[in-house]
C-alpha cells in the first residue's frame, strides 16, 4: 500500500509535466485543427530560455528566502513571454498562409518547424545535455509512509492551476468567447466582427507560453535539459491530449495525469514492467478510442478550444 501511494505521487508528478504540454497541443488543435508538432520543441525552448535567464541572474544553485519568489517569477514570466512570442512567430511564418490549404500541408510544415527548432537549439546550446540549476529547494514532505518532494507538489499544483485558469479565460472572458466562436466556425466568427488572425495568434501565444512554463518546471524538476527533450515529451503530451479528447482543456489535463499514472503503475506492478510502459499506455489509448472515439471528455464537452 505504501508503495502504491508513493507511485501515485510519482505518476501524478510525471503526468503534470505531460498535462502542461498537452494543454497547448489541445488549444491549437481546438482552434485550427492543426496538430502542432513543433509544440514539444517550444517546451524544450522554454527550458533553454529559462536557463539563459537564470544564467543572466547569476543563479547556479538553490535560492532561499524572498529572493526565491523573485527569481522564479522573473524566470517563469520571461520563459513564458519568449515562448509565447516564438509560438506567435511560428504561426505567422509557417501556418497562417496554409490555413486554407489541404490538411496535410500544415502538418508537414509543423514537422519541419519542429526540426528547425531542434537544430536552432542544438546550435545554441550544443548537442549534449546541459545541467539546469535546481533553483527551488526540495524539502521532502513525509506524509505518513510516503515521501513527496516540494518540486513534485509544484508540478502537480501548477498543472491544475493552469488548467483552471485556462478554463476561466475561455469561458468567462470576451477573448475566450472569441476563441470559442473561431473554433466553431471561422467564417461566421469573422462575419460577426471577430479578428480571427488576432484570435488565433492569441491561442498560439497562450499555448506556447504554457509550454514555456512547463519547460522551466521540468528543468527545475529533472535538473537537466537538452535539445531533443521535446520529442518524447511532446509525443506523450499529444497522446494525453487525444486520450482526454483533443480540443478539450480538462481532457488534456486528465489525459496527462492518466498517462503518468499508468506509466508509474505499470512499472511497479508488471514484472520487468519498465520496458512495457509505452505498450501499456498505448493499449489503454486504443481501448479508450474504441469505446469513446473522441476521447474521455471529448463528447460531454463538445465545444473545442
Amino acid at each position, binding site marked *: 500500500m505504501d508503495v502504491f501511494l508513493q507511485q501515485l505521487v510519482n505518476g501524478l508528478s510525471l503526468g503534470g509535466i505531460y498535462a502542461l504540454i498537452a494543454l497547448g497541443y489541445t488549444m491549437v488543435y481546438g482552434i485550427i485543427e492543426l496538430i502542432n508538432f513543433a509544440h514539444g520543441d517550444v517546451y524544450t525552448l522554454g527550458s533553454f530560455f529559462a536557463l539563459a535567464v537564470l544564467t543572466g541572474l547569476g543563479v547556479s544553485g538553490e535560492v532561499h528566502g524572498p529572493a526565491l519568489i523573485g527569481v522564479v517569477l522573473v524566470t517563469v514570466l520571461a520563459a513564458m513571454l519568449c515562448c509565447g512570442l516564438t509560438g506567435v512567430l511560428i504561426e505567422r511564418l509557417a501556418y497562417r498562409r496554409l490555413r486554407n490549404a489541404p490538411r496535410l500541408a500544415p502538418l508537414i510544415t509543423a514537422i519541419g518547424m519542429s526540426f528547425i527548432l531542434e537544430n536552432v537549439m542544438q546550435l545554441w546550446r550544443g548537442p549534449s*545535455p546541459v545541467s539546469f540549476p535546481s533553483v527551488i529547494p526540495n524539502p521532502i514532505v513525509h506524509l505518513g509512509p510516503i515521501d513527496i518532494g516540494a518540486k513534485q507538489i509544484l508540478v502537480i499544483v501548477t498543472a491544475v492551476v493552469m488548467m483552471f485558469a485556462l478554463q476561466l479565460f475561455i469561458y468567462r472572458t470576451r477573448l475566450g468567447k472569441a476563441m470559442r466562436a473561431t473554433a466553431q466556425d471561422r467564417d461566421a466568427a469573422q462575419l460577426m466582427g471577430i479578428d480571427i488572425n488576432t484570435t488565433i495568434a492569441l491561442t498560439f501565444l497562450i499555448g506556447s507560453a504554457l509550454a514555456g512554463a512547463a519547460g522551466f518546471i521540468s528543468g527545475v524538476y529533472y535538473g537537466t535539459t537538452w535539445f531533443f527533450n521535446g520529442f518524447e515529451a511532446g509525443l506523450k503530451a499529444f497522446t494525453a491530449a487525444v486520450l482526454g479528447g483533443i480540443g478539450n482543456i480538462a481532457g488534456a489535463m486528465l489525459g496527462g495525469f492518466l498517462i503518468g499514472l499508468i506509466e508509474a503503475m505499470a512499472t511497479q506492478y508488471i514484472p520487468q514492467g519498465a520496458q512495457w510502459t509505452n505498450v501499456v499506455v498505448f493499449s489503454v489509448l486504443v481501448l479508450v478510442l474504441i469505446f469513446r472515439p473522441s476521447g474521455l471528455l471529448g463528447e460531454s464537452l463538445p465545444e473545442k478550444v
Partner: protein
Amino acid sequence: MRLGNAAVRVLAGLSIGVLAVGCSSSSTTSQSSSASSPAAAGDNSNASGGTPIKIGIEFPLSGGDASNGIPSDNGAKLAIQEANKAGVPGGFTFVADDLDDAVQGTHDPAQGAQNTKTFISDSAVLAMIGPFNSNVAKAEIPLTNDAGLAQISPAATNPGLTKGPDAKKGLTHPDVIAFFRVCTTDDKQGAAGATFAKELGKKKAFVVDDNETYGKGLADVFEEQFKAGGGTVLGHEHLNKGQGDFKALLTKIKSQGPDLVFYGGTSVTGGALLRKQMGDVGMSGVTFFGGDGISDDNFLTTAGSSANGSYYTLAAPELSKLPSAANFIKAYAANFKDPIGPYSANSYTAAKIEIAAIEAAIKANGNKVPDRAAVLKNVAATHGFASPIGTVGFDANGDTTAPILSLYKIENGKAVFVKQVNLST
C-alpha cells in the same frame, strides 16, 4: 501582430537560413569529407603521387554520444596525421573520411549501416575504424564481412559480435572475418564488475539495462557472475528508449532494498538520469555501478553531484599509468582542444594497425594501391604490435590478445582510477 508581407518573407528566409546552418553544423564532418571524394574515387590502378587512400571512420559525432565519439575520432585522425607526416610508401596520402552515426542525438544502427555502405561503395576506402556502440557494430559487421573491408572497433565490447553461436550467423564469408577490436569484451568486463562489486562488500544487487546489444549483454553477464559469486540479484529491469523519468522504477527498486544498482548501458540511454534521480528518491547512499558506457563526460555533467560515489569499469587501460602512452597523450593535447576520451588511445591504436597493414600491402604491391583483401590479411595477422595501450594483436575471433580492464570511482565530479587487471590468458 500585423507584419508586412515583405517582412514575413525576410523572416521566413532567415529561418530557412538558420535551418541550413543547423544542418551543416550537425554534419560538418561528413560534408567536409564528402567534398574530397570525387577526386579520390576509382583510380586504383595508377600509383600517381599524392593519391589519397581513405580510412573510413564511423562514430557518433553529435548528440549525447558526441562526448564518446569526438575524442575517439580525434585519436584516429591523429594516427593518420602522423602517418602522412612520416611519409607513406608510394607517395600516397591518407585521408580520414569520418561519418556520424548519431540520429536524433543518439547512436543509430541503421545510420551506421548506411555509413558503412558509403565506405564500401567508395573504392578509395581501404579500411574502416568504428563504430563505438555494439548495436551499431552488429548492423555493420555483415556489410564489411561481405565487402572484405577490414574494420577495427576501439570500443564495441559485446562478446556476441565475435564469439558464440550467433557471431558467424548471416556472414557471407564466415571463414574470413573482417571485424576486429582492440577493447576488452563484456564477458570479461561483466565478470570483473561482479568481482569488484563483491570486493566492495555488496551482496544484494538490482540490475538495470537499456535493452541494447551492449547494455543487455553486459548486464546479463554481471547478473550471472554476481549470482555465481554468492550475491543475490533482486531483479532485472530494462529501460525504454527515450525515457527520462525513472522515479517510478527507482521507487520499485528502493522498496526491495538493494545495496548496489548495476547499470548496463550508456549514459545517454538512461544511465546518467537514472543515477541523478536516485538522489531524488532517497537512494543516493546506494552504490551505482556501471560498465564503460558511463565512462564519458556526459555522465558527469548530466548526473552532476549525484554522480559522486559511482563506480565503473573501462574495457581499456588507464593511460596515465602507461609509459607507452605518454607520447600519445602529449600529441593529442597538442592537436585537439576536446579533452582526451577513455577510448581515444584505442582508436589511435586501431588506426595505427590499419595504417601499418595498408603500408605493408602497398610495398608488397610494388608501391601501387593494394586491394582490400591484402589489407584485411595484414590486419588479421597483427600480433605483437607496439601501441600506446601496450602490445596488441588479434586472436582467431578478431578480439584483442591483451584484454585489460580498469576500475574507476567518481569523486568530486571526477573519475579517479582505482585499479587495473590484465585478463589475458
